[in-house]
């Protein structure tokens, strides 16, 4: 475990050093992040100014859903950035050299591109989330449940990204798969209650986007029942098993292209 953590930190350090090699890149990247944050802030202000209630949720509650979605989405993007670069590793055969290293390949192909500079972006997100939550979230065990479900959400995101990697090996296609994943998760920007059946059930329990993005907010607001809380772990475990089985199957099918 210590060995894996050391390697993870070294990959993160090298990723940051690679980013900072080009000063122009750092400037453009930082401006991009500021613009992204400004857009988010403007959108929130717009929603607050135009609407008061959203399908039974107050506008503050809907804003909390939105911010927590952004938090989960940003954490997954920070952690799993390397997945976006996976296709080239498969196509040019560099995956071979990774598979032969004495560490789990996920350390490199899943979480090997964490840029510590990105973590700074989380600070304003967390600050706004706390400001929004402070007026509407009751203080109690719901905060603990929220953090447990937040970890569960990252676990679900991990399983989705492992599936993307496995499909990358089987089909040499990553870009479209990751776009589908991002489109699906974006459904979780707002409470699942705003969608009609059967979409709501499908995207909550079959493709557990709702569990990933909405359940932590519902728990924080004290709106999540215990049975749903337990079901969320069963479903995330099933998804993880499916992802790992697909990954192991893909490794057996790997043809090591480009050599």
């Amino acid at each position, binding site marked *: 475990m210590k060995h894996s953590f050391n390697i993870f930190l070294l990959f993160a350090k090298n990723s940051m050093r690679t980013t900072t090699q080009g000063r122009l890149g750092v400037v453009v990247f930082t401006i991009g992040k500021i613009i992204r944050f400004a857009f988010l802030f403007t959108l929130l202000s717009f929603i607050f100014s135009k609407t008061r209630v959203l399908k039974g949720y107050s506008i503050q509650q809907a804003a909390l859903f939105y911010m927590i979605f952004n938090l989960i989405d940003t954490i997954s993007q920070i952690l799993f950035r390397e997945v976006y670069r996976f296709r080239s590793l498969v196509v040019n055969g560099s995956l071979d050299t990774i598979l032969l290293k*004495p560490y789990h390949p996920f350390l490199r192909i899943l979480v090997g591109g964490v840029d510590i500079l990105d973590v700074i972006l989380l600070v304003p997100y967390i600050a706004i989330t706390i400001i929004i939550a402070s007026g509407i979230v009751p203080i109690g065990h719901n905060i603990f449940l929220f953090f447990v479900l937040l970890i569960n959400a990252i676990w679900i995101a991990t399983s989705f990204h492992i599936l993307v990697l496995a499909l990358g090996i089987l089909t040499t296609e990553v870009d479209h798969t990751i776009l589908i994943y991002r489109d699906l998760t974006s459904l979780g920007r707002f409470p699942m209650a705003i969608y009609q059946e059967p979409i709501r059930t499908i995207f909550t329990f079959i493709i557990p986007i709702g569990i990933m993005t909405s359940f932590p907010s519902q728990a924080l607001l004290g709106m999540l029942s215990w049975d749903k809380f337990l079901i969320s772990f069963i479903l995330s475990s099933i998804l993880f098993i499916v992802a790992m089985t697909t990954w192991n199957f893909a490794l057996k099918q790997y*043809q090591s292209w480009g050599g």
Partner: protein
Amino acid sequence: MITVKNITKVYKSHIRQNNLFKDMFFRQFKEQTAVKNVSFSIGPNELVGFIGPNGAGKTTTLKMLAGILYPSSGSLSVLNQNPFEKKRGFLKQIAFIMGQRNQLIWDLPALDTFDLQRAIYEIDELKYKKTRSHLLAILQCESLMNKPVKTLSLGERMKMEFIAGLLHTPKLVFLDEPTIGLDIFSQEAIREFIKEYQETYKSTVILTSHYLEDVKKLAKRLIIIHKGTIMYDGSLKNIIEQYSTEKRIKIKLNETVSEAKIKTIGNPLMYIYPQLIFSVKRSELPEKIKQISQSLPFSDLTVEDASIEEVIKTFFSENKKK
């Protein structure tokens, strides 16, 4: 060290039917056998040359031995383990260096990759520094490790690649076309390096190369693979003796000699004064040397085998006839 029994690898690929509907819903596949019932064993401290034409199955075999590819059938044991399980202890004892692959961090100096390798393979700090200095000294490239990899030439990068791959002094080294694309000086440097590395660290090395000079200079044992099947497994010396039916007599003349006089001995392969070369059958060699000694004025005479390329060519053409 390595025991391979009847391994086969079949690749499945999609056949285009020029019909989008059929390609989507009624896909047809063809199976291509890259390696067919291959068996051999390799002992410790051997340096084995693995050769064959493009698509013969060399790299596929190596990748199965390293655990990258899963064999379709057969069994193999490498360092007493099943390589595909990719156990940490196993992976720490092997290295796979590929001429067409790059594991160095492109934007950073090679030293950063070396440090990363140290952490990955958990190499003791003192041992790491000692091995790094030694490998850098053999390749005479101490000054390169602080330059960003992207600024290095192909030959320089390959040297760094070798150092990064061998810092953990593995017991078993797979080299897949390590000299591909390099100029003759870099090729020579890499060959010398492999030789010295293997002698110093007593590793088992399996080498594939299209440059037969690599194999000739480094390997004592040769495995020839063609269309996924092993056609020869034995010493390099034996194959040269068996398939080199002709010998080259190279002569350095003292003075010019008329072509008519030269033709009394035989048709020369080349004659550009002072160099004269005859290609003669092995059985006729003593007689020809006697004739040359009696009739030609020369200052130097050497007898050589046919080039390894010619030997292999003869090997393939004779096996084709069979």
